[in-house]
């Protein structure tokens, strides 16, 4: 349990750090663009909304920095992330709330599938070194060097178009109303296939490679020799001894690189105009929608931390050494 508490404390600290970065960054933006944006909507904004934006951007010159910081936290804890400029006057939290499920479904599932598939292939390639799988390594290196978004562009150019099964953009058929019925879910699935495949192709090879290298490293461990010496079956040695141990560092590597992966996968959404956080982020950048940008950053960070915590739990379940005796 101590391990878990330590991790939890660390994640809380990181959330604090992210929020603090979020607090200070807008204060670096020269006040004018924000002020002018607020001014533009002056007539339509309630006093509350103006106050909230003032707190977000530190335009309230009267308050001390510390006072501003306290206000900022109070506002965050109420779930108030300000109003989005792009989708004026929708609150940022609503915009994010609409986009988050799409991203969690697309990026979350494909990342897991990519890790699982890549690890599986890595086990094979590492256990049977010198087999045809080794010949694939240069190919996978090349694939993992391609930016995700560019692969998406190529996929769109090659596989979509009039008469194609794959839609080139969006998260569902434009005429449909989001609902939990088969038509909508089917359409959503159809729209997610190509972005998912793009993420899969470019992210999987990294896992293949790292798992292969871990398998090769683990295969030289004494306990593998012992397992062979015991006359155990090949599969038992490969899976229960080699792969089981090689998986551990790969899982912590997975947790640590989540931040990198998520950044890359968000871009796939942009290319496919997929209605998730990445696409919103892109639009917010274009429109200089600072409240939305910040909100998205915060929510991505928190999601990554939650995913990290889940990976920690998995690690805890898989490695008896991290569990306390008794």
């Amino acid at each position, binding site marked *: 349990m*101590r391990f878990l508490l330590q991790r939890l404390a*660390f*994640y809380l*600290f*990181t959330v604090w750090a*992210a929020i603090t970065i*979020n607090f200070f*960054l*807008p204060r670096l*933006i*020269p006040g004018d663009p924000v002020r002018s944006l607020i001014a533009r909507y002056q007539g339509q904004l309630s006093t509350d909304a103006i106050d909230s934006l003032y707190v977000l951007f530190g335009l309230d010159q009267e308050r001390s920095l510390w006072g501003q910081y306290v206000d900022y936290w109070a506002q965050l804890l109420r779930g108030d992330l300000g109003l989005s400029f792009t989708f004026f006057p929708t609150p940022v939290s609503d915009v994010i709330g609409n986009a988050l499920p799409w991203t969690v479904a697309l990026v979350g599932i494909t990342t897991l599938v990519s890790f699982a598939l890549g690890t599986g292939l890595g086990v094979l390639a590492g256990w049977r*070194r*010198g*087999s045809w799988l*080794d010949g694939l390594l240069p190919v996978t*290196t*090349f694939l*993992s*060097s*391609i*930016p995700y*978004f*560019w692969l998406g562009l190529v996929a769109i*150019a090659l596989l979509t178009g009039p008469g194609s099964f794959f839609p080139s953009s969006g998260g569902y058929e434009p005429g449909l109303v989001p609902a939990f019925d088969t038509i909508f879910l089917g359409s959503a699935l159809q729209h997610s296939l190509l972005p998912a495949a793009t993420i899969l192709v470019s992210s999987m090879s990294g896992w293949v490679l*790292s798992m292969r*290298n*871990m398998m*090769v*490293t683990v*295969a030289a461990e004494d306990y*593998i*020799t012992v397992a*062979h010496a015991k006359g155990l079956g090949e599969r038992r*040695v490969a899976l229960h001894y080699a792969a089981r141990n090689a998986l*551990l*560092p790969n*899982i*912590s*590597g997975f947790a640590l690189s*989540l*931040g*990198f992966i998520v*950044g890359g996968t*968000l871009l796939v959404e*942009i290319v496919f105009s997929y209605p998730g956080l990445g696409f919103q*982020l*892109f639009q917010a*950048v*274009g429109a200089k929608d*600072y409240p939305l*940008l910040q909100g998205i950053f915060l929510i*991505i*960070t928190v999601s*990554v*931390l939650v995913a*990290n915590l889940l990976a*920690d739990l998995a*690690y805890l379940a898989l*490695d008896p050494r*991290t569990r306390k005796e008794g």
Partner: protein
Amino acid sequence: MAVPAGTVDAATPAGPATVGTGVRHRPGRRLPLLRNRKAMTGLITLGFFAVVAVIGPWLAPYDPGRRSADLLQPPSGQHWFGTTHLGQDIFSQVLVGTRGVLLVGFTAGIVATLLAVVVGVTAGHLGGVADESLSVLSNVFLVIPALPLIIIVSAAIPESGDLTIALLIGLTSWAWGARVLRAQTLSLRRRDFVEAARATGESTWRIIAFEVLPNLTAVISSGFIGTVIFAVMSQITLAFIGISSISPWNWGTILYWAQSQQALAQGAWWWFVPAGLAIALLGTALALVNFGIDELVSPRLRTSGSGPIRTPDGRTVRMRTGFTPVLAPAQPQSRQPRRQRRRPTTARRPSRE
């Protein structure tokens, strides 16, 4: 900060035991990296890009920004990579853009590596509270998603040129290297020659400079190259989504214009294919150099010494852990019935019958 036991290994497949062998114990073999085929391929490709980065602007047949009447032309003898919607020559844009890509990539790599060395080695060598706090700091930077962070920071900076972007990437991507270096330094600290240096009363900084750092060369260079890869990708991504200034040419800005002018819908594949291939090629080259370094540091990863090998008498034998192959000189009585007997494998041939 408690860290899962395996994470150190994850970062360095070699494990701590292999650190330093490359420098200390093989005086006769200078630059062993050049003997590695993967690394060599990577370095040559990298060299090619470096040359293009230097002389690209002079090689470019056109001014990359100049408009012409050849709107959206597919590749031809006149325009090798075709033209944009404004009639700009894409080949020239790719050539001129190489400089920016490499410049930002390597600047960010240097900044991040310097930070990683300072933070990682200090933490690993000093231990105690300094170590704890530096470790937490690098872990925070590790788990905060880097790209969104870079995006919101550069959105806050009004005009972000190449240098700003490079610094930004460098300042946000040092944590991985620092973590690896800390782990390696920690294991080096317990090595005999470092202990010996400490016992003879050498100063901490002298030990770090002359005993620790030389043994971390491989880890530092592989971290450096990893950061360059990340920096190149990030920079192109930022240009692609229109965050950084789009006035200087780089491969990302080409893609930005291709995307914003609906190159796809117009079937203008030549607009985004060359830049994308260039990125992938550069990324592959860097990754190959890193594989070379990895194999150098941890000999277990080398592909030679495994897989099928040919024996002097022409048989193929598979190296396999747990079942050492037997290569007895083939004996007359065992050689003849080999085919008829149809063994399940040709690999583990018995020495005698």
